[in-house]
């Protein structure tokens, strides 16, 4: 069973619908007990960094998420579910994340002609072509993004995909069973569904 974590921030429908469409056994879970039963976990992204962390802590999920990731079972973080893996974020003041990956979440610096949020379709250039989630997807494919903050990992060897927007940032990371993306595969039409299918087939 693929568990989609509900941390009280609303809209999980797009992610669960996408997995259902692909024929996966998917469940929305909000308790550590349910989460422990999952074969795979998806942490989708909605809301602000601090609210997301608070939602996870309030439900007693922080430890369970950590345990799940160290268990070696596949984990997919999407958007905010990607950003909270890092040590800290500057969104809305300084806030601590899960710290599973070392690095900081920063705001895009305003520049002339560079609109924030980074909203729309942008390319993901593959830094780790062997990443199983890229199977059947062309390098430099477009995915749908919507975010004002981006993660800057300390360890560059976790970067699986990079995207240019004023600066080149890590749009996807991969370390063992841990996969996380800044973009929204559930909103990226066929290419996005292909990536989720790859996750189901891990």
């Amino acid at each position, binding site marked *: 069973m693929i568990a989609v974590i509900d941390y009280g921030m609303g809209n999980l429908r797009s992610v669960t619908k996408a997995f259902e469409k692909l024929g996966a056994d998917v469940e929305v879970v909000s308790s550590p007990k349910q989460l422990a039963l999952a074969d795979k976990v998806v942490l989708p992204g909605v809301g602000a960094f601090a609210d997301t962390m608070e939602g996870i802590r309030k439900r007693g999920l922080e430890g369970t998420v950590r345990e799940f990731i160290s268990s070696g079972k596949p984990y997919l973080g999407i958007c905010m579910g990607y950003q909270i893996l890092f040590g800290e974020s500057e969104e809305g003041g300084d806030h601590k994340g899960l710290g599973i990956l070392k690095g900081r979440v920063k705001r895009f610096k305003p520049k002339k002609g560079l609109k924030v949020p980074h909203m729309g379709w942008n390319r993901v250039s593959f830094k780790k072509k062997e990443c199983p989630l890229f199977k059947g997807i062309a390098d430099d494919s477009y995915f749908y993004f919507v975010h004002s903050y981006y993660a800057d990992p300390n360890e560059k060897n976790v970067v699986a995909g990079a995207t240019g927007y004023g600066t080149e940032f890590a749009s996807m990371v991969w370390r063992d069973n841990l996969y996380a993306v800044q973009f929204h595969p559930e909103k990226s*039409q066929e290419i996005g569904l292909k990536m989720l299918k790859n996750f189901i087939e891990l």
Partner: protein
Amino acid sequence: MLAKRIIPCLDVKNGRVVKGVNFVSLRDAGDPVENALVYDKEGADELVFLDITASHEMRKTIVDIVNRTGDAVFMPFTVGGGISAVEGIRELLNAGCDKVSINTSCVNRPDFINESSKRFGSQCIVVAIDAKQKGKGWEVYTHGGRRPTGIDAVKWAKEVESRGAGEILLTSMDRDGTKEGYDIKLTCKVSESVGIPVIASGGCGSREDIYQVLTKGKADAALAASIFHYREISVKDVKEYLKDKGVPIRICTRKGDHD
């Protein structure tokens, strides 16, 4: 590089797609979800549903449409029209849309922008600005283009950004329904005045119009209804045309996106 977006707009009344010409005469033309599927296949970058249902009782129908659309297509879409409360936004986002577009309620009570963007995040709050030329500038209109407000459109655009809007959907009232092309001056002025993305709307009659507004008009995205809706041109044709002219555009292929 971030691609410029092509966004078909579906005007929805009582659960059916219609297209307004200067916001007045309407022609019925089909099921919203069927339309969404067509645009999804053609490679549209996003969709906008504009709910022009007048009566409060019928407003549940748009939630149902959002639900059904989310079941059928896996692409971003926005819903606008008649949104006046945080609760209404929550209902639509939970039903599966990505962004909501708000006009009148923001003008009536600008704090609504702060409240909703704080609650749901700037990225899902689109402020729609309907603007009509007045002297050397443009005036903001509300209530589906029926009521002038005396507010300067460029000033208002800056204010909605400072209050937390994540995007502006800018419609030229002068051009809407005319097919004479977007208001390039208005779009350029607004786009250069704010740091958030601007979607240009109103007046699209050809692919050249879209090219102009994305280049000279400095729009981040172009919205059009009738040219797509009545199949005068497909989204795919527009995108290929723009790409040939050097505009950064996403062309869809089954396996990925090559150039």
